[in-house]
């Protein structure tokens, strides 16, 4: 992350952001993956992942954040997340009805238990996180273009 002194915030904010932005993303992924064992789940983890990208954009300016995830990639990833959730629902037809939980349910308190709930959490977090970042990107691009006029 190159430091351009004209865009973004001051030097103190940029230094602290370099240290914390990876930790916030990792914490969000942890909350998503342990959604069936401890409080959290797909929605809270997805919003935390979106917050890490918004943090990067607020501290460094628009260009650094767009180089990580551009607007087209954000739209495509969000659609992939929604389609993944729908396909998990349709796989349930193998078990008898819509949304049936067909994968095996392991022992309690283990990470790979609870059937399709783990995959559903990952799909929902992808959809919610990237969608909320796309909203913020649309807001910032409009600000920039109306200032240039």
């Amino acid at each position, binding site marked *: 992350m190159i430091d351009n002194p004209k865009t973004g915030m001051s030097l103190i904010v940029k230094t602290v952001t370099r240290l914390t932005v990876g930790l916030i993303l990792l914490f969000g992924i942890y909350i998503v993956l342990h959604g069936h*064992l401890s409080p959290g789940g797909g929605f809270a983890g997805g919003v935390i992942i979106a917050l890490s990208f918004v943090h990067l954009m607020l501290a460094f300016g628009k260009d650094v954040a767009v180089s990580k995830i551009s607007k087209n990639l954000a739209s495509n990833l969000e659609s992939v997340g929604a389609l993944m959730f729908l396909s998990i629902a349709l796989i349930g037809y193998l078990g008898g009805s819509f*949304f049936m939980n067909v994968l095996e349910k392991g022992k309690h308190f283990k990470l790979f*238990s609870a059937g399709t709930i783990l995959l559903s959490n990952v799909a929902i977090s992808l*959809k919610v996180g990237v969608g909320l970042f796309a909203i913020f990107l649309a807001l910032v691009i409009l600000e920039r273009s109306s200032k240039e006029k």
Partner: protein
Amino acid sequence: MELHILLIFMIFAGIIAIEVRDLLSSVVAVGAVGFALCLAFLILKAPDLAITQLVVEILCLIILIRATINRDLPLTIEGRWVFNTLASIVFVAAFLFFAFHALKELPAFGEPIMEVAKKYLEEGADKTGAVNLVTAVILDFRAYDTLGEATVLFTSVIGIMAILRRPGRKKVGS
């Protein structure tokens, strides 16, 4: 007891958020209401909701501040102010009077009638294999509602990307 204090704090912060003239101060007051709500969820033993409410409140504050930071105008009071305020206060008082009589029919606070939830609590952990029962309810017993919520979020993102488009396009053939 703590819940009463939190609710009175939320009412005061809500009145400040509506009445203050400066837009940035009212956005900060709405943030205070949201954080007090997160504390209330923790007291009511709902940790999933507390985590979700906290992070959603932070994102909502960022979006609100971006909208109001350079766009602020002073307002003046126009005519018919007395009649409008009196009419809305009478409406709110009538609503509260009828709501008070309707609230007497609910069971007392702290003793819910859990008919469906009793089944979820007893059989939920064995039927789904998940230890977190709220996740088991939203992703296994009631997964159709989660599909509906994913659709609502998708529609909202498409709507925002369509509204906030860069104005002006290149003319064809010039």
